[in-house]
């Protein structure tokens, strides 16, 4: 191979930089609602996010990474000229990072996911022409960007409507919560465990079939029912009080549950978004290892770990400030609403991760919050944000594609 090792080191730096970016800016989207509703403190949010972002990236991050590194652009096109493929992937990584910084500066709500997909497509088009792109896969990715906020909205609506009907509508919401919350925890826990088990623990060499996972999930749901029922009846000793206090007590229970959904969101976010940083890098590593484009190799653990560490460092050095600012800005969300929106978001994102679809966690969250709003759960939502998001979709993909082409031409002049 004609490339110097500096290209490899440059790739590592670009990858860590991208992961740092995700940790610094994106994680706040996952944790903001929990901090805003005072379910967790800033300190707790940073610690939980650190642990669960890493776990998600490490355990489930591989599926989406595979899509980014070989699902959208057909590597077979570059058989025999691996250096071009490496430079292209490096260009994609750098371009996505540049675009993210630029759009942060311009104040656009741009998604890291859309940036990296746009960048990879741009490189594929430049080198291989339109035949290098797996159009079917790209179409399913783009479709998922529209569908994931809608699934989020539908789930957010359903969960909040259940909470409303079974708990908040009651004459004594705190007593209704003793029945309603354990019931709610059966499907919630089942879905949670199921989504962790199915295709998730492959990296831990634990193989479970869907049927087994379903059984374990339902069993976990029942355990959650019994445990929460026990705690709510025994530990929360509700004396008769004013109705106002009754709502407060219900919200306090949801604040406890929201610690769980906050972890779940961080896990799902790590699982989906780590690919934005390590997808192109994993492709580069595979070529360096094999000498050519043998695409059968799995994503190495150390690459997933590198992405996870990058996210955690970004969170620790800059992200906590963003979480703090956002948490202070959102005051109109209470734990029952935050719980509904977060659970809907995390489940949707994790489902998409399992299917290898890179979706935007923050856009899914927007969908879920609107779903809760449609069930009359939110005091005021500024729907202008939707327009900004759609605008940023329309701009991001072509813009990152263009930046990638420019960066690639510069790299090519330097390296070849």
């Amino acid at each position, binding site marked *: 191979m004609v490339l110097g090792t500096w290209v490899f080191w440059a790739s590592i730096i670009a990858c860590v930089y991208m992961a740092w970016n995700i940790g610094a800016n994106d994680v*706040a*989207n996952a944790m*903001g609602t929990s901090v*805003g509703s005072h379910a967790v403190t800033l300190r707790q949010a940073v610690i939980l996010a650190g642990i669960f972002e890493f776990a998600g990236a490490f355990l489930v991050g591989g599926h989406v990474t595979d899509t980014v590194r070989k699902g959208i652009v057909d590597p077979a096109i570059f058989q025999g000229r691996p250096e071009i493929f490496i430079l292209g992937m490096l260009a994609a990584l750098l371009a996505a990072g540049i675009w993210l910084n630029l759009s*942060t*500066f311009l*104040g*656009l*709500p741009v998604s890291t996911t859309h940036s990296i997909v746009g960048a990879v497509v741009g490189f594929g088009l430049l080198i291989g022409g339109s035949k290098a792109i797996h159009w079917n896969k790209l179409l399913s990715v783009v479709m998922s960007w529209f569908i994931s906020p809608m699934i989020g909205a539908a789930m957010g609506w359903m969960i*909040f409507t259940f909470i*409303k*009907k079974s708990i*908040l*509508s*009651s*004459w004594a*919401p705190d007593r209704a919560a003793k029945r309603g919350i354990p019931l709610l925890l059966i499907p919630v826990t089942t879905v949670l465990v199921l989504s962790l088990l199915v295709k998730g623990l492959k990296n831990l060499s634990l193989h479970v079939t869907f049927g087994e996972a379903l059984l374990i999930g339902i069993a976990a749901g029942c355990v959650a029912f019994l445990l929460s029922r026990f705690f709510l009846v025994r530990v929360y000793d509700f004396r008769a009080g004013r*109705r*106002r206090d009754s*709502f407060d007590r219900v*919200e306090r229970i949801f604040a406890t549950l929201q610690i769980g959904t906050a972890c779940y969101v961080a896990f799902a976010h790590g699982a989906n978004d780590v690919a934005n940083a390590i997808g192109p890098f994993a492709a580069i590593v595979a070529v360096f290892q094999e000498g050519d484009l043998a695409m059968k190799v799995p994503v190495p653990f150390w690459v997933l770990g590198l992405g996870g560490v990058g996210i955690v460092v970004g969170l620790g050095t800059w992200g906590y400030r963003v979480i703090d*600012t*956002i948490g202070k*800005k*959102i*005051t*109109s*969300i*209470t734990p029952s609403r935050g719980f509904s929106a977060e659970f809907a978001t995390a489940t949707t994102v994790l489902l998409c991760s399992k299917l290898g679809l890179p979706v935007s966690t*923050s*856009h899914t*969250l*927007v969908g879920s*919050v*609107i779903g809760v*709003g449609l*069930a*009359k*759960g*939110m*005091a*005021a*939502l*500024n*729907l*202008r*944000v939707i327009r*900004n*998001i759609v605008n940023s979709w329309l701009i991001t993909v072509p813009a990152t594609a263009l930046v990638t082409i420019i960066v690639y031409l510069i790299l090519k002049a330097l390296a070849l």
Partner: protein
Amino acid sequence: MRKTIFELFAKSPFGPIQDHMLKVMDCVRLIPDLFRALEEGDQERMRDVTEKVEKAEFDADEIKNQIRGDLPRTVFTPVDRTDLLDILRFQDRISDVAEDVTVVMKLKPLPFPGEIRGLFWDFMDQVMVTVEQYARINAELDELMEASFGGAESGKVLEMINVLGKMEHETDRKQQDLLVKLLSMEKELGPLNIVLWMRVFQLVGDIANGAERTGNRIRLFLSK
């Protein structure tokens, strides 16, 4: 700060609408003081009370304008945005009417004959009971939001609105009795004073009418 998806969370209008009503009540609760000062012939205190009413009315206006500014058309609320703005307008109208009472009282020193005092205070108290009932309904708005405008909380508020309607009806009846008494004193008071008192009764009665009208708007929020 940079723009994020969290621009999505707009400022809740419900707390500020409650703040607005608190200011309106500050204004309305001064009206009985005005007539107590008249009863005692204390001109200075009447001027003092009038100033306080004007100040409270102005503050309420400020809050109203602030809320309107925070509720552009792109903001999605769990209840119809135009209903929210109507409630705000109706609430604000209550403090406007209260201020109008002080305006009429400033025109000319009015005689307050002992014969109408009893009926007048009956009427005045009933107006205050009615408007306080609306204030209690308004104070439920945050609970209604928490219960997302349905279920038991909604039923409770609905019942409060029904009570409000009965209270307002009672106000009308007392206003009628008071008017009859006033008109029977035409000789002693003279036509000018009669006309001015009638205007005062009308405006004081409108405080209760306004409270009922605003309460009925809240009905539109409630789902069964």
